[in-house]
């Protein structure tokens, strides 16, 4: 007599009869070890309950589960004849007939009793009732099946879900009242994350990738708060908010922070959205964009945060779609695409070619394609913090705030610090943030506020030293492109002070990181005066060597208020 294969799970080794299909055997082992066991190791299961194992196979999950949790009743559903026979045999041999029942049944949307199902030719595990869209059609096969509603009626406490292609339909059938524990995997179509919520603990990896649908109730409110910093935006605020609400699920809220507007922005907003349950108006004294964004965050109780500018818009469903990859990946932040536009006489005109991300490898995620952006690309890119969704606990744990006292360019430091700490940023570009470009933008004023950039890069330098950043090169590259861009738009009389301050900070950066950092620098983008100032500082500091202490030096040209005061006194 040949010995039966042994399956190790939930603290015991269980010998089980299989169908003889070695792929199924190995696949079952992998799922036990990589999906089911880690989740059950963590979850506080009550002593008794009713579990349904949907797609039970020969019982690789159900039987070790029944042995490990003796107070639980288990129902196994399995349509395939061979697997069902092995399942029955296993139940009998382990003498679990009192608690474990088996039914030869598939759960398929649209199933009509004994009417034949269609089996996909390409992916034989995929069954359908009558949906003709299976690629290449398939073989009709008479398998007993019920629609998801029949499953819902059994009201299980735990559901183990192996139902390739039907995960979304089955979760949707529960209509918000999911079993308390939901375990399984999703294959081609990741179920919308809104289907999992409430008090349900969910662990549903997607197609064998590290991405998964997961919930752990008890923390912050499961949802996304989109913070709008509004200052004198009466003309655009309604379009902005309604674009966010277009196609938004109920767990998305818009927090509009009125930063002391004087143009009636708040009443414009009230006129349009006074009764909208998802729009909240917060009013405060004027304090600048950074303080308004922080204000929104301080009043948010959501797991995820996003920040939209009051003069911009998004395509329908933009934030929910980015939230999907934020939730599935669990990463600190996730990103969507963006399209700059200008207002034309007949509506928006595309303003600049979209960024090129064609070099990043893509992979499917449901109907979308996703890719991962390494942090140096985020850090060296244009500040686009508004097209990202952030985990609130990440921002809190890393103490990343917009610096309240910075009145312009506050998103630069936010991008640098979130970018570095996020590491790899999951992204998709099938949905877009619509970024309005106009002459009145803060960043185009060419006044002293350009020096806020210098102060912020200094803050990042000091932060990088204390936090031990592995690489500062991307920040330096970003520094030089920001310098070049700011200098080009700067008023003539401010350029001298700006270059002097820029050279001073660059000298400190070099002294902190050593000459190796020069490779990331682009002094050629700047006028020769920059190099002259830097050389002068180097002469003054000759003999002192390099060291992290230079991350703490400073200069008045790196602070807007001091610069303004000095200029006023000089005049």
């Amino acid at each position, binding site marked *: 007599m040949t010995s039966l294969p042994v399956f190790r799970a939930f603290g015991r080794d269980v010998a089980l009869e299989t169908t003889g299909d070695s792929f199924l055997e190995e696949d079952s082992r992998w799922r036990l070890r990589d999906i089911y066991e880690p989740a059950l190791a963590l979850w506080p299961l009550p002593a008794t309950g009713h579990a349904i194992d949907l797609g039970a196979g020969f019982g690789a999950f159900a039987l070790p589960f029944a042995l490990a949790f003796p107070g639980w009743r288990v129902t196994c559903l399995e349509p395939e004849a061979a697997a069902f026979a092995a399942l029955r045999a296993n139940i009998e041999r382990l003498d679990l007939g009192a608690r474990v029942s088996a039914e030869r049944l598939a759960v398929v949307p649209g199933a009509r009793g004994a009417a034949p199902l269609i089996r996909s030719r390409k992916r034989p595990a995929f069954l359908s009732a009558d949906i003709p869209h299976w690629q290449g059609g398939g073989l009709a096969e008479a398998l007993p099946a019920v629609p998801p509603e029949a499953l819902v009626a059994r009201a299980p406490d735990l559901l183990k879900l192996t139902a390739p292609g039907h995960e979304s339909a089955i979760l949707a059938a529960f209509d918000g009242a999911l079993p308390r524990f939901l375990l399984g995997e999703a294959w081609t179509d990741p179920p919308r994350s809104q289907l999992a919520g409430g008090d349900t603990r969910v662990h549903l990896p997607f197609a064998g990738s590290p991405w998964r649908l997961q919930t752990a109730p008890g923390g912050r409110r499961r949802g996304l708060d989109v913070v709008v910093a509004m200052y004198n935006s009466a003309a655009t605020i309604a379009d902005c908010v309604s674009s966010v609400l277009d196609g938004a699920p109920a767990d998305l809220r818009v927090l509009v922070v009125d930063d002391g507007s004087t143009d009636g922005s708040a009443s414009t907003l009230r006129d349009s959205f006074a009764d909208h349950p998802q729009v909240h108006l917060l009013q*405060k*004294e004027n*304090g600048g964009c950074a*303080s308004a964004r*922080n*204000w929104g*965050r*301080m009043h948010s109780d959501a797991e995820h945060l996003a920040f939209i500018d009051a003069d911009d818009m998004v395509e329908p469903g933009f934030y929910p779609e980015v939230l999907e990859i934020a939730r599935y990946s669990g990463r600190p932040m996730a990103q969507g695409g963006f399209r700059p536009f200008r207002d034309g006489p007949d509506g928006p005109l595309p303003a600049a070619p979209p960024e090129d991300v064609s070099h990043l490898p893509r992979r499917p995620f449901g109907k979308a394609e996703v890719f991962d952006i390494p942090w140096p690309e985020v850090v060296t890119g244009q500040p686009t913090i508004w097209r990202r969704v952030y985990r609130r606990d990440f921002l809190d744990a890393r*103490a990343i*705030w*917009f*610096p*309240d*006292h910075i009145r312009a360019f506050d998103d630069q430091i936010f991008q640098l610090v979130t970018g570095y700490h996020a590491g790899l940023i999951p992204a998709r570009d099938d949905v877009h943030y619509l970024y309005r470009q106009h002459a009145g933008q803060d960043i185009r004023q060419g006044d002293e506020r350009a020096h806020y950039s210098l*102060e912020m890069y200094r*803050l990042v330098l000091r932060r990088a030293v*204390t936090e031990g950043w592995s690489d500062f090169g991307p920040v330096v590259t970003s520094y030089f492109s920001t310098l070049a861009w700011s200098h080009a738009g700067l008023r003539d*009389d401010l350029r*001298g002070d700006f270059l002097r301050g820029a050279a001073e900070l660059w000298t400190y950066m070099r002294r902190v990181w050593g000459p190796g950092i020069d490779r990331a620098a682009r002094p050629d983008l700047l006028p020769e005066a920059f190099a002259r100032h830097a050389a*002068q*500082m180097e002469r*003054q*500091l*000759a*003999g*002192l*060597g390099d*060291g*992290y*202490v*230079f*991350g*703490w*030096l*400073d*200069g*008045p040209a790196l*602070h807007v*208020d*001091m610069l*303004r*005061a*000095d200029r*006023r*006194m*000089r005049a």
Partner: protein
Amino acid sequence: MRRRRRSDAAGIDRTGAHVTRITCITPFHREGRLLRTSLDSLLAQDFGDIELLLVDDGADLDTRTVAESYRDPRLRILRQANDGLSAARNRGIAAARGAYVCFLDADDSRPPWAFSAAERLLRGGAPDLLLWPGHLAEDTGQLLPFYDRPVLDTLEGHLGGETATRGQPGFRQAQALALLAEPQSANKLLHRKMLRDPPLGFPPGQFFEDLYFHALAVARAERIALCPHPGFTYHRRPGSGQLTAARDLLRFDILAVARLLLTRFAALPEADDALCRTALMLSLAKLMRWCEEMLSHPHRAQFRIGALAVLALADPRFRRLAPRPPPIFGHFDTHRDWLEGLLSDARLRPAKETPHDIVARLPRLWPGRRA
């Protein structure tokens, strides 16, 4: 209890509206019940024409609850994300409505006579900077005059009850003595105009912000007076001087503050006065030396390099100290020794006596050049 006297309401602005006399700015963060120390003492002042600005600097719930438990029309709360003490005070300055502005930290206090005693001097000599002596409450319970009482006694003797005025004899000496005073944020009242034009505030994001603010306020003052009656009590709390790894690096902020202060001070006429310069360098040396001695050993070599870099980048005039300053400067002899040791470090290159901001001064030589 409000004891607002009619006669205090003399401040009237151009529109005929009443101008609050004194604004006191108190940031709070995680002080909890200790916040009551400052608020109770401010609300118990026997001078009532005041505005109390509380700045919530990302406070915890306990502290916020304490702040919100006070119901007094003179009290206003501003709120910011945790952006630091300096930014919080600056936020207070921007929102202040009083003719004069002062600061009090959340766990410090003022004696009930502080504002009325100051007000008599404000009425009399119309100073734009008024200094108070203070008290020190040690964590052992010991009560003492604040560290700088001898300096302020000397200043009191020098002023003889008058207000020192820029351009008058003795003004520079008054400035020098004021620069020697402990740079405590609670020890002064400033005319609000002085903070506005050109702007004067605390350096955001940095500790030791008091030194920067104090020195520039003294250097920019037109009329300086000293209140003979103590106006604040500084409370040392158990554990407040404790060194932790994270707090250790905060002491490096003194380097930034020194660099900012020396650069900005160099542009003022006070930098040409040997006594003022010496007083500035000595109070700077006192703080830098304290920081160096409080640092954990692995950081000290770097700190010294930083201190040398500050001197290397500073205007060379700051390397020349007054050879024979008045006797009160003798209190700072140990700090002067430390500073002179730093100045004679072989790594510090001798400086040429041309101010490094010469480029900024050039346009004055050729006024037509600014096309």
